[in-house]
């Protein structure tokens, strides 16, 4: 994989907007060790976004893009919500689906890509809010998992419908009062990670996005397992600072507070047996590659 696939016709290079020139010259596509550390130096990893200042979704989205193992051959499926404001800035193929339909669209897309490009690895990654994933789209979410569709579902869990001003969602905590849910939530936060495991997901993680290296690791794992084995699910806490009354600098602390072992976003991971085996194999290969690189470096220096 490389940037070979995205060359600008030389006659038009001078008239292309700078983002596209940067994409072909400096994008991280094809870079073996691309990851969250590339953020800030590559325009394609969302230089500008249109979310609220300091919204943790903006960092989470960047970590995801930087961590995709195969960005040129990845199609992301989005849904309406705050994330859909960012998709126009994303240099990975993406489809905006009707609210809630994201996992149905992704199912068809993944199957079609498999038929159309038999020899090529094509990854499909859904990225949707909690309203889209667990409420209006729950049918589509679960059915895709029951059918063992081979793609990754990522839920940006901000515990409410942020984009429409703060309505109650199934992932909201019990008792929470939002701007447009004044009575307060009367039932518990839906335990979607457990439901995902029981519905057939082979790799499930719930965490916050306070640690980029952790996000990078779980994204990679989820994409690899989905590619080889079956559905995977990531539930990432991206607090809506606007709705919980925090200012733009407080998102990180909010995540740190909520990920403590006794809190609702304590790290949770479920891995099926076949997925465990695959991840172990991948880790072994990675180790081998690193050792070989080290040896090569030592030989060069000698």
């Amino acid at each position, binding site marked *: 994989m490389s940037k070979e696939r995205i060359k*600008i*016709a030389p006659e038009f290079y001078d008239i*292309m*907007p700078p983002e596209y020139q940067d994409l072909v010259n400096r994008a991280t596509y094809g870079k073996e060790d691309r990851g969250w550390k590339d953020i800030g130096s590559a325009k394609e990893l969302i230089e500008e976004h249109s979310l609220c200042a300091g919204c943790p979704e903006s960092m989470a989205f960047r970590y995801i893009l930087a961590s995709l193992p195969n960005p040129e051959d990845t199609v992301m499926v989005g849904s309406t919500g705050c994330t859909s404001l960012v998709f126009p800035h994303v240099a990975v193929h993406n489809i905006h689906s009707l609210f809630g339909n994201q996992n149905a669209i992704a199912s068809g897309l993944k199957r079609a890509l498999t038929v159309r490009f038999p020899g090529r690895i094509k990854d499909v990654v859904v990225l949707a809010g909690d309203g889209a994933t667990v409420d209006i789209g729950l049918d589509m979410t679960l059915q895709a998992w029951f059918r063992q569709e081979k793609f990754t579902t990522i839920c940006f869990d901000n515990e409410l419908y942020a984009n429409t001003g703060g309505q109650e969602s199934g992932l909201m905590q019990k008792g929470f009062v939002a701007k447009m849910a004044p009575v307060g939530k009367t039932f518990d936060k839906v335990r979607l990670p457990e439901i995902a495991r029981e519905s057939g997901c082979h790799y499930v993680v719930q965490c916050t996005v306070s640690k980029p290296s952790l996000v990078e690791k779980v994204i990679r794992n989820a994409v690899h397992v989905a590619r080889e084995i079956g559905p995977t699910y990531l539930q990432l806490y991206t607090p809506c600072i606007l709705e919980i009354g925090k200012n733009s600098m407080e998102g990180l602390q909010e995540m740190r507070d909520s990920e403590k072992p006794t809190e609702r976003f304590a790290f949770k991971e479920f891995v099926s047996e076949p997925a465990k085996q695959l991840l172990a194999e991948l880790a072994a290969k990675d180790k081998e590659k690193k050792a070989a690189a080290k040896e090569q470096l030592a030989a060069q220096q000698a």
Partner: protein
Amino acid sequence: MTQYKVLPGPEHFLPPAAASMGIRLPNPGEGHINGVIVPEEQAYEEAARQFLMAKVPTIFPGPLVLWAWNEKAAKKATAIRHLYETLKECVTPQQRAMLIPMPDYRPKYPKINPEVEINPNHPNLTIWHNKIDCCMFVGVHCHQANLSLKIIRGGTSCYTIAMCAQAGHEDAMLSFRDASVEKIMKLAEWVRKLKGTVKVSQVVSKSGASN
């Protein structure tokens, strides 16, 4: 029933798809002008005339030619650049030929820079900003071109030309079909041939090409 004509707008907020108004696509060897099928030769002459008449004649190359997908796309890119250079040479100092890319189709949110690009979801912004009064689409996928051409007809008075690689565009005011390197070069020849014979449009529009 009077025949619908595909004319410069502003038509109204939602102009009808020309196909729904009975406009047919040309057969090979033909083009259409305002929805009337004409021999291709006539379309070359009229397209060249429209370019030379406009104050800001502009070419909008789309993703199919901006990106070097293959050898064919690369050759088309060379031909389009040649057409643009020819146009630049053939217009008077009062006119300003432009070449503005449509690099992809994503809606540019929250804002586009209309000085450097055009987007099919709000092409009117680029047309208004640069006061473009004649434009040619080339290398834009059919469905995006149709969407865009309709928006332009709806909200601006810009004359639209489609150099279409497939069966042509009803929603443009003038359309070629089966676009090739040869056809693009031939249009450049026509521009050169008509140089100095066409009077520049005197119409003054207040906000760009819209009325």
